[in-house]
């Protein structure tokens, strides 16, 4: 099975981000540093099958966020995000 079939979208990380942030995050707008596209987080590509959750730009596939969980705490890696607006 190729990566493209495993892809879901930013709606799928609404739950985990909802535990961390007080704002509803799938509606948050994100600017990709790779291609400058601005999209709601809900529209970005998400890959859940990695050890963590990887959020990629839906236009250029730059990695925007990497979310991992261990022992009840979260680590969020902010990668190619110029800004995020809720």
């Amino acid at each position, binding site marked *: *099975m190729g990566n*493209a*079939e*495993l*892809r*879901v*979208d*930013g*709606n*799928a990380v*609404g*739950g985990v981000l*909802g*535990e*961390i*942030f*007080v*704002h*509803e995050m*799938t*509606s948050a707008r994100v600017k990709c540093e790779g291609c400058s596209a601005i999209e*709601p*987080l*809900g*529209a970005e590509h998400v890959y*859940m099958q990695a050890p963590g959750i990887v959020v990629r730009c839906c236009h250029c596939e730059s990695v925007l966020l990497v979310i991992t969980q261990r022992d009840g705490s979260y680590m969020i890696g902010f990668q190619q995000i110029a800004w995020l607006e809720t």
Partner: protein
Amino acid sequence: MARAALLGRLNWTLGEVVELIDETPRVRSIVLDVPEWPGHLPGQHVDIRLTAADGYQAQRSYSIASAPENDRVMLTVEGLPDGEVSPYLVDELRPGDKLELRGPIGGYFAWDARLGGPLFLVAGGSGIVPLMSMLRHRAVTESSVPSRLLNSSRTRQDIIFREELEHLAARADGLDVFHTLTRRQPDGWDGYARRVDAQLLAETAWPPASMPLTYVCGPTSFVETVANALVLLGHEARRVKTERFGPTGG
């Protein structure tokens, strides 16, 4: 959208199963009583978490099928043979059982009548579930937003909410329902009989010039085929919202 109502971190909570409804041979609706449920927007989902006796946990997202105006929360789940969570939900769950859940989740893939239309909904298989919440909300609030549903199923018996969709379309309040059956069609079938493609979308979607709001939900390959075709047909990408279930949904 009622943003203030959405503020606040999500926490896991328990819902009690009050009713189970077999929708098709593979799909079951779970009606939950969730104490202190804050209400939801049509299109939102919840995460369900199962914990095994040895502490192993598995969680999946399931769309809410009920209208926000309903006191109880209905999830409609397709049982997948290799799934970690859905076989339990579809085959094992009994009334009175408790389910661990968090939600409602989402805001991007959500619609309520105040957002207007025209509305075009495209569902592949159990992708109908969040769109059904929108249609139920539209009916309960007596909205007359011009709306079209294009619903793709394998066979007639796999059409989820078939009778209810017939009733909704019969209200003649501006909703048109189109079905396509991709695998097998009964004798005398008067709907479409092929996978959703650009031609089928051109026949059923609102003209791009009417600036419709479009919601597409289903397996990843279905959603991407539909969304890409709509953009090529001239629809504005930002008004085509997608929810991909992945290859299975688990």
